[in-house]
């Protein structure tokens, strides 16, 4: 699958996270200077130069577990605190929102426009902080440089890589259910009306040509669904009208956004299944990530600036209920993360990771074709 997917995954998920946090900060009436500080701290951590450099390298996507850890750390990069239940809900909302955006992108290249929508919003959040704005602009330029001239086929591969990552996630989100873009079984609705993607014609017309290339006949066929033409292509520059609405803040009108408990329960079971599959690489991956993010300061609530807890649920009681319902396995997963700037450790980890790549494929004993398969494992 595509080796260029990670930056897009991270930035879009991060953008969704910021939308949700912004909405919750307002809903909980957190004083605006504190709220602003939270947003600034998280955004500057997210767009940290060293981390971004690592992200933009050609690589496969992180595992689901590793990515979740990155976002756990990111959400705690400020004086704000989230308990387990709220963090789970935050992550569920983020992932389902981005999955929706990827699935409904009219054409593969529009994923870039979705990313730019998120970037535009991030810039809006930190418009009063020129130094962070600078950081974000740098990354914006890097996005444009890396992705603008990729062919459509590469974007389709990126899109498929993302969809494989989100496969089997069917958490119901109330805002989607209300707008009827998601069914009660958690599946998204593909619309059969609306604007066609840029570069696509409205279906229905057949043109026939002769050997000299002249059009000789026309025919039409009936099309169910009502499509319209799109007038302009979205802008791929630093500034401009993106045209696509996917990736813009759907929480800007304050409505309570909930994930449905039963849906979450089902998903917890599914999640538990994946998490228990042994993956020796995961711990090393997480340590490497932690090491990178460990180079960043972690804000601890100190003295005159007390931390506060953000609640993703309507009330504290609901949050406690949600925490109680979660299966006990969740609390057993205490991931031991070492935060240190040890250069030697970094090198060793990198070496360990190299070794793991070779040993990763387990040997299987099957009845026939054994030696050929064994040969493949050793490659």
């Amino acid at each position: 699958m595509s080796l260029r997917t990670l930056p897009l995954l991270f930035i879009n998920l991060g953008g969704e996270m910021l939308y949700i946090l912004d909405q919750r900060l307002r809903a909980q009436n957190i004083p605006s200077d504190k709220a602003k500080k939270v947003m600034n701290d998280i955004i500057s951590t997210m767009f940290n130069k060293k981390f971004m450099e690592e992200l933009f390298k050609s690589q496969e996507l992180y595992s689901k577990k590793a990515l979740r850890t990155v976002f756990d750390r990111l959400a705690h990069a400020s004086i704000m605190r989230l308990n387990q239940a709220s963090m789970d809900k935050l992550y569920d909302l983020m992932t389902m929102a981005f999955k929706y955006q990827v699935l409904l992108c009219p054409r593969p290249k529009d994923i870039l426009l979705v990313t730019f929508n998120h970037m535009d919003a991030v810039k809006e959040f930190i418009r009063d902080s020129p130094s962070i704005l600078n950081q974000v602009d740098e990354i914006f330029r890097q996005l444009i440089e890396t992705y603008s001239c990729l062919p459509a086929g590469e974007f389709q591969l990126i899109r498929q890589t993302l969809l494989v990552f989100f496969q089997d996630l069917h958490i119901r989100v109330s805002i989607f259910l209300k707008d009827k873009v998601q069914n009660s079984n958690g599946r998204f609705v593909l619309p059969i009306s609306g604007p066609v993607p840029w570069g696509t014609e409205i279906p229905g017309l057949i043109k026939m040509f002769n050997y000299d290339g002249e059009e000789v006949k026309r025919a039409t066929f009936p099309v169910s669904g009502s499509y319209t033409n799109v007038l302009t292509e979205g802008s791929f520059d630093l500034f401009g009208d993106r045209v696509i609405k996917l990736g813009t803040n759907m929480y800007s009108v304050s409505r309570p956004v909930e994930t449905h408990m039963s849906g979450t329960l089902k998903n917890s079971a599914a999640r538990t299944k994946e998490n228990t599959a042994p993956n020796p690489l995961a711990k090393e991956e997480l340590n490497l990530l932690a090491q990178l993010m460990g180079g960043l300061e972690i804000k601890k609530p100190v003295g005159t600036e007390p931390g506060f807890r953000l609640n993703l649920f309507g009330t504290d009681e609901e949050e406690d209920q949600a925490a109680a319902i979660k299966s006990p396995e969740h609390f057993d997963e205490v991931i031991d993360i070492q935060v240190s700037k040890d250069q030697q450790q970094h090198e060793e980890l990198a070496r360990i990771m190299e070794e793991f790549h070779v040993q990763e494929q387990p040997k299987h004993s099957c009845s026939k074709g054994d030696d050929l398969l064994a040969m493949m494992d050793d490659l």
Partner: protein
Amino acid sequence: MISSTLSEYKSRCIVAEHLSSVFFQASWCVLPSRILLVLASQKGIQMYESDGSIMVYWHAVDTPEAPTAEAVFARGIAATRSNYICVGTSTGSVLVFNIPPKGTNITVSEVLEQHRDPITDIACDCSENKEYVADLVTADDSGVLCIWKSGEDFKLMHKLAAYGGTCSSVKMWSGIIAAGYGSGQILVYDAATGTVHVEVNAHARWICALDLASESGKLLSGAEDSFLRIWRIYRNSASNTIE
């Protein structure tokens, strides 16, 4: 017979899964003397006997020499009438494998290097009609189509410039080529001349797959707009066109 094939295949599927590779395409290759199951993935190309019992050939595409910045994979599988199986790769090369009537002595007989972008699909003329010389078409991410005549040395008959966007799927029948594009259009070409005869605004989204019924010449297209459409293609001898 069918159920045992499926169960063998299933067990082989489970084994293949553990090699932690993503499979891009699977195809039954029907040759005059045997049928092989060919799987194209991120790691390479696997060929199995038709009952899934034995893997007869393995070709790695993910080699140390492969460029590391780009994704590497195999995609696009077709069997020609004359004992060759062609598989495309992400570098744009098309590997031509010479398949003996039985056994595992499969060799790479040729590498076709006309494409510069990842191969999306390959198709062989699936009709019984032997009067048409060109019998293979290869397509890539940029929309370029190459039409070939298979044999000991494959001969390039036509190279068609990119029409508009990625050609995601291609099928061939009776000297007619049907190509589906990411823009949702289907284009029908005459393989002998390389000219476009039909342009259909078929779908509102990316066309994922095409299939041709070899006896009736009916074409099926499936796209991300959630529609499946069936088309009839025929040669109109009166006007000497394809419709």
